């Protein structure tokens, strides 16, 4: 599945770091630079594998490290209810 950020969140990015305002959840979140980079690619069209590949390239980390970190981050986003409902794409 290709994760997508919740469209109702209010997002502001400053100095490469995102601030997420979740009105319905009553929370405000701050993402560090790496998490903000991942967040910006969760468009519902990009797979976690492709996001990890971009992380590996930009942050100069090993691909296996990048996919592990991206998956851990996606788990956190899901736990915090920051992602839109994920619908399996055809063939997934």
């Amino acid at each position, binding site marked *: 599945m290709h994760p997508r950020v919740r469209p109702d969140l*209010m997002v*502001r990015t400053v100095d490469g*770091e995102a*601030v997420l*305002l979740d009105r319905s959840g009553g929370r405000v979140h701050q993402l560090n630079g790496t998490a903000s980079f991942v967040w910006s690619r969760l468009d519902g069209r990009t797979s976690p594998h492709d996001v990890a590949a971009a992380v590996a390239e930009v942050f100069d980390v090993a691909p296996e490290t990048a996919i592990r970190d991206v998956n851990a981050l996606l788990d956190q986003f899901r736990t915090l209810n920051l992602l839109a409902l994920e619908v399996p794409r055809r063939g997934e």
Partner: protein
Amino acid sequence: VPLLRFLLFGQHVTVACETGDSAAVLGTLYGAFVSPEEQAPIQPPLAYTVGRGPTGEFLIRRGAEGLPPADSTGMLLFHFEQDLVVELQKRRSDLYFLHSAVLEREGHALLLVAESGGGKSTTTWGLLHHGFRYASDELAPIDLTTGLVHAFPHALCLKADPPAPYPLPAGVLRTSRSWHVPVGLLPSALAPNPLPLDAIVFLRYRPDIDRPGIRRMGAAESTARLYTQALNPLAHPADGIDAALQIVRGVRCYGLETADLDATCGLVVRTLFS
């Protein structure tokens, strides 16, 4: 009936006290806001009365609306100020109200932001012995157009006696809930009002650590932490998140883990003014 007249953020407030003890207590707490009679409008926008009920409880009314009865002086102050601050937010919704202490040094404001019990008032009391002047220990309304911080110099409110070497003076008002230091008993003068903002320090009380620590914070983290202490964010566009971002931009922001009060004060002064 003693009539107290206050002026807060351009809003006139009157309190008709049907008993002398409530007048004395409220006069002590809000002495810095006293407004000369000739400046008061004929019909003030906020009119309170404070009386006593049949069992001796304090009865507070704003206009015709009753507030919860208060069975002690401490509860009287609690209910009165809680209502007053909410009403002021309604009437000055253009201001961005923060739950924050405000201190002044060299003509600029320092905000001490923390959750309740996070050490704002105790740290404020300590810093008043280190060249800072008092503007507020609880409320920081910010004018988003000018960037100026308004003062709310009610009596400094502590929940316990501060540690040495910062003892409280004689004359402090002690209630069942808290201690109140009238502005006339503070170790420094009141700050000018309003003030341009220079720095924000986010406090976290850490009784488990031996020495305080301070670190520079980025704009995103500062925005998120400031937003959690905004009292009326929804009164502003984009639910107030842009206002929080606007406030932290262009000022220095720090995260401070407080420990020993004397060491904490020294660290703040060295960090901000060295």
